[in-house]
């Protein structure tokens, strides 16, 4: 029998791939008032994100995320590479990836969708906008959308 995800018993696992501690904190702030119980995991570069997803090294016990928030401009391994690897992996490709980046360049947007990003969001420059966006992610991806359940088994 399936458990209801997002409750205290089964929190929603989100992987935030973001190199800026400021943005990490802002995202945490924004999720603080979320309607559902969220476990926010942070990878500060692309390599660490892949290690987390592959449960390598210190991430051996990492949960499989329900949603990935991915910045594009990352040290070591670029966000575009991370996206490509996730979407080429038979086991990972079903995880929705939300590209959350400062870039508003059409080339970046197009490339991300070509790599099968599930959606592309440009970080708003002001605080209110940013909070609104994170809340929208919360309400859309975590409340409206039905996420793949069998993957959690």
């Amino acid at each position, binding site marked *: 029998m399936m458990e209801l995800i997002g409750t205290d018993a089964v929190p929603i696992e989100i992987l935030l791939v973001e190199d800026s501690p*400021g943005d990490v904190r802002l995202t945490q702030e924004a999720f603080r008032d979320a309607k559902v119980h969220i476990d926010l995991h942070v990878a500060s570069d692309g390599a660490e994100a892949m290690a987390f997803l592959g449960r390598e090294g210190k991430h051996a016990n990492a949960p499989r995320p329900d949603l990935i928030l991915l910045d594009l401009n990352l040290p070591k391994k670029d966000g575009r590479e991370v996206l490509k690897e996730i979407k080429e992996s038979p086991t990972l490709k079903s995880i929705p990836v939300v590209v959350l980046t*400062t870039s508003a360049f059409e080339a970046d947007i197009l490339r991300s969708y070509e790599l099968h990003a599930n959606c592309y969001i440009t970080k708003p*420059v002001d*605080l209110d906008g940013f909070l609104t966006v994170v809340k929208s992610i919360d309400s859309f991806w975590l409340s409206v959308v039905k996420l793949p359940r069998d993957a959690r088994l």
Partner: protein
Amino acid sequence: MMQTDGWYRGLLEAAPDAMVVVNQCGEIVLLNVQAEKQFGYRRDELIGQSIKDIIPEGFAERLIADGTRTAAEALAQQIGTGIELTGRRKDGSEFPIEILLSPLEDPEGILVMAAIRDITKRKQTEEALRQSEERRCLLENGRLHGSGKVTRDVTARKKAEEDLRDSEEMVRMAVEAAEMGTWFWNVQRDEISWSDKFGALFGLTSNAKLTYKLIIQVIHQDDRQRLDQSVQNTLNLGVPYDIEYRVVWPDSSVHWIAAKGRAYRSAQGVAEHMQGIVMDITERKTSEERLVKMMGELKRSNDDLQQFAYVASHDLQEPLRMVASYTQLLARRYKGRRDSDADELIAYAVDGSNRMQVLIRDLLAYSRAGTNGKALREVASESALKEALANLRATIEDSGADVTYDPLPTVTTDSVQLAQVFQNLVGNAIKYRRAELPHVHVSAAKNGGDEWIFSVRDNGLGIDSQYFERIFVLFQRLHGREEFEGTGIGLAICRKILQRLGGRIWVESQPEKGSTFYFALPEGAGK
């Protein structure tokens, strides 16, 4: 004398040329009516006379037996070849002839039959041709280096000569005015004649004879093969000679030359000579090179600008977003919880970072206005205006502005950028209003040329004429931020867009009476 006289005679009389039969002593034994006519003798006056009477030189000496050879031997050497000699008439006048010889067997010995053709006309034609060719080469200063004599036939065709001289004079003046050098290359003899100017352009220091091989030495090493190929194409295929190459002067200086010419062929298709002009194009080449270099620099600086746009949009925006977000978060979380002093300080930080963000955003918009445009196409300018008005709907409604427009033309332009210009101008017209309700009117009229002049007229504050230029400069404002918001980007963007579209923008205004902003757009594609 001869039994065969009858059929000889018939044969001779039918021939189109003068025919004379001579015996081994050089005496004329037979002649036809053409020979009588050509030399002006009656037949009986010539029979038995020496051939030297009518062909003083070159005939008897060649054909008649002497101590060293027999007549047969002498004749054998001459058979079948056309020999050019001079004929003398009874009145003493001379004319050019060509003779063809053949032997006749006769019981009395070997006779020689000569077919004699008057080649006066042919000689005249040849001479005229040669003269006109040489004259073409004499176009400058009437002087010719490295080549043989110049002959002038003063008696022939005076009128034609004068006409020719007139047209040559015109050509000479044109050649001189264009500072062209001229050259003439006798391909068969490999002799090149040239004009003074040619010598100057090639840095020639002597008037010594030039050959193709010698002139090639003056050509820049890297251009020699190309030049030679071009010359061969002209000689062999008749391709017009048209080439640019470098010459190296004795002082090692390099000069660019443009050369044009053509080859003249014989009836058999053999190239006999080539001639043409040369001119110095060093200056043009230098500016072309400079232009290419400048284009490269311009492209680099444009690329730099694009790079700057990226830096401004991302790298600069990024830390600023942190400053803004966290000061805002501070304000939100602690407003009223500390003393009012703290609230005020935080407020300044928030305000400063907000303005910085707007400036960066506007700067980015400005840098993109000149480079990020779409391809130009036919656009109904009215729909661009409607789009602008739709974007301004809130502003128009809030201000109660009355925006009207006349029918507007179709122009070849960038519709997005045109809409942006309309939006900025109409937006300004409403923004800088007086107490009364703003009225904005947009119209367009064709000027004398092929430009459309658009106008956006308002009844707003108006502008003092001393600021007519300044308002179009980036970040230049006439009002404090407390009076009117903004960074001073709008008109600067308008001007940049119009520069890109091949147009221009200006204003006419009086303070307190309103302003009219004009912009001109080419009817066709902008450049």
